[in-house]
């Protein structure tokens, strides 16, 4: 039987976050992979820390709130992302950047506080985040002139990311594992608040 630490799939999660953390910065335009618009959409999400960090944070929150909440977010987030992305592509008015940072900070704060939210609340937060970040994604897609396939690619990555993270967190049973998730939440909240400062910084 494996030791408890190794039975828990932290290794993969830490490796992913480590590699993704060092990924190059996000661009306002679509990442070109050369593999077509579907993969461009996937690449854009994976190379945009402000997007995958928010998706990851929401998945952590959903996992902490239980398996049912995780299952709800698994479908609500990609769908609302698609809707928001379509609206963003059609309207393409850039909202203030600080809003995304505030969303990240609040989500991290909820994780750190270990609030066990009821399913409709988690679903509503997921829908709001999906609509907002999808909208930003849609605005970024305007220069590319195509939204459907890139947004579908992004939604697929979101589905997989939420499924993995929320399932891992929903399965935690040991106290220290839940504490580790709360610590991660405090780091997310701190990062979000610093980002608000970056956005408000003059010069």
């Amino acid at each position, binding site marked *: 039987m494996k030791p408890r630490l190794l039975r828990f799939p932290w290794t993969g999660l830490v490796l992913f976050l480590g*590699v993704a953390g*060092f990924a190059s*910065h996000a661009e306002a335009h679509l990442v070109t992979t050369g593999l077509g618009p579907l993969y461009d959409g996937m690449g854009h999400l994976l190379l945009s*820390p402000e997007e995958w960090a928010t998706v990851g944070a929401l998945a952590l929150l959903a996992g902490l709130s239980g398996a049912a909440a995780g299952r709800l977010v698994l479908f609500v987030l990609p769908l609302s992302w698609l809707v928001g992305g379509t609206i963003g592509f059609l309207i393409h008015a850039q909202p203030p950047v600080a809003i995304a940072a505030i969303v990240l900070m609040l989500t991290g704060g909820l994780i750190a506080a270990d609030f066990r939210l009821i399913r409709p609340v988690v679903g509503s937060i997921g829908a709001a985040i999906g609509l907002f970040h999808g909208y930003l994604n849609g605005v970024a897609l305007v220069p590319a002139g195509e939204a459907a396939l890139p947004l579908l690619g992004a939604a697929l990555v979101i589905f997989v990311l939420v499924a993995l993270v929320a399932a891992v967190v929903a399965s935690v049973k040991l106290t220290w594992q839940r504490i580790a998730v709360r610590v991660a939440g405090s780091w997310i909240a701190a990062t979000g608040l610093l980002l608000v400062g970056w956005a408000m910084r003059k010069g």
Partner: protein
Amino acid sequence: MNRPYRLSPTLVLSLTAGLLLAGAPSVEAHIENGAASGFAAGFSHPWSGWDHILAMIAVGLWGAQLGNPAVWLLPVTFPMVMSIGGFLGLIGCPLPGVELGIGLSALLLGLMVATERRPPLWIAALLVGIFGLYHGHAHGTELPPGRDGMTYSMGFVIATGCLHGVGIALGLVHRWPGGVIALRASGAVIALGGGFFTWQALA
């Protein structure tokens, strides 16, 4: 049949590839000006000054000495309040006596460990929080202007958490009789360092 856990070649290869990828610089068509270009720059920032390092390790040492729940509550409190300080520094809101506060943080936290003080949890959290505010403000004003605040902030916050982790790991020696003395001695060394930085701030 139970088998001891062994690192599989696939996992070793994945970890190696991940580390190599993580260390690789992002491809740029131009030279990046300013250090705020990514996770690595943010991650290295908190390690750049001994005054910060000593205080953050002291937080971990004290948490380990106090035991549960302080062992995780103090390292959660510090980055969250630190980010408030960082936010104030980023937007240019002044905080008087920052250098003195940083020097005093290492001095007082070192003394707490050296004398094995066990105040009520809220007082310990308040003390750590106040010092976190000073450290965050100093970092916030030092953060170089850059276009990738997200990965920089992530690296910065995670590095702070790692420093607390180092302190907690070192602090675990208090479980052994000889370790109790070693831990108190390390607290005294930190207090001496803090005294030096306080004296420098006052000079």
